[in-house]
């Protein structure tokens, strides 16, 4: 079995953070004309919605899947997908893990001088 060398990542902004999730777990990206009761990732991450984020014209809605389960979330701005070499991923530092960092932050990476938080988005929703 060949080790995974690259992974497709969906990159988006949420709460001022740059977030990456495994693109294979994402389905049905579409416009979000109304938010309804669907959670906004910014709020899940503990941020208040900015005016831009509350402006539904920029919002996108998509589904996160795990097995047969599926959940919908809203994000403010999808940057796009990127194929990233796995060697670019960095584990969450142990010193950070020791201080109650959420387990759903599964890794980190740098992109254009910014840190990307690689999330298990389904776990965030749980």
């Amino acid at each position, binding site marked *: 079995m060949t080790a995974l060398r690259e992974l497709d990542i969906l990159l988006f902004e949420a*709460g001022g*953070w740059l977030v990456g999730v495994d693109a294979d777990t994402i389905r049905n990206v579409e416009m979000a004309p109304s938010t309804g009761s669907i959670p906004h990732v910014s709020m899940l*991450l*503990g*941020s208040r919605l900015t005016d831009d984020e509350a402006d539904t014209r920029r919002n996108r809605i998509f589904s996160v899947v795990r097995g047969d389960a599926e959940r919908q979330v809203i994000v403010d701005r999808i940057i796009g997908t990127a194929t990233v070499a796995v060697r670019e991923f*960095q584990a*969450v*530092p*142990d*010193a*950070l893990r*020791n*201080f*109650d*960092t*959420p387990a759903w*932050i599964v890794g*980190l990476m*740098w992109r254009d*001088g*910014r*840190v990307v*938080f690689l999330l298990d988005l389904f776990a965030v929703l749980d």
Partner: protein
Amino acid sequence: MVKKKDSKGPRGGAGAPPGKTADSSGIDQAPAPGDDQAPAPRDDQAPAPGDDQAPAPGDDQAPAPGDDQAPAPAASRLAAAVATGEGSARHEEAEAGAEIEFLCVRIKDRRYAIPVAWVAEVVTPGDVTPVPHTPSYIRGVFNRHGHVSTVLDLAQFTGTELEENPTRLVVLEADSLEAAVPVTEVTGIVAMANEDVAPPLPSVAHESGFIIGQITQGSDILSVIDVSILLGSGRHTWGLRKGE
């Protein structure tokens, strides 16, 4: 057999007596970002393979960290902790009379002394990205030579206000753990005889489990930080101690 450390340490200054700051000019003399004279945790003073870092039987100068069988003097605990820390392995410092070098810092109105063996480098604060859903004393992460490093706000961690205007980040390493602490000021480096490190005040020791001693520098009292405890046990040790 351990070596006796030269009393003229690289930062002790020629003839600088113990307890005197070798460099009173402060921050300009402190290890600068990228300064390759910054104390390297894996320096060539590390004991050779097979050189047992544990104290020899009967050696009451350097009990193992966590050995609470006897009321070990603070200096001995510190020396043992430093000597057994992965970041330092300065075996000879466990010897009585040996000197320990401390990086002296001020964080708001509190002063701390950090054994240099645990200091990887001192850098200028750059962009720090907050981390979602972490305690307030985790300021975030920053890019340290291409890898992610944690910024731990010691002022918040000890229950005081956030240090809002740090001039430096002191990068600490111990037991494969690494974090940077924002400081208001680096005040210098001081070399202290092992036995001149006093036990911490009970109130301080009780409140902050990572404070394992205190030293005097002029009219100031500096709390000695055990970086291994600070980074390894984190809030949990601190919380347990507070709940005792």
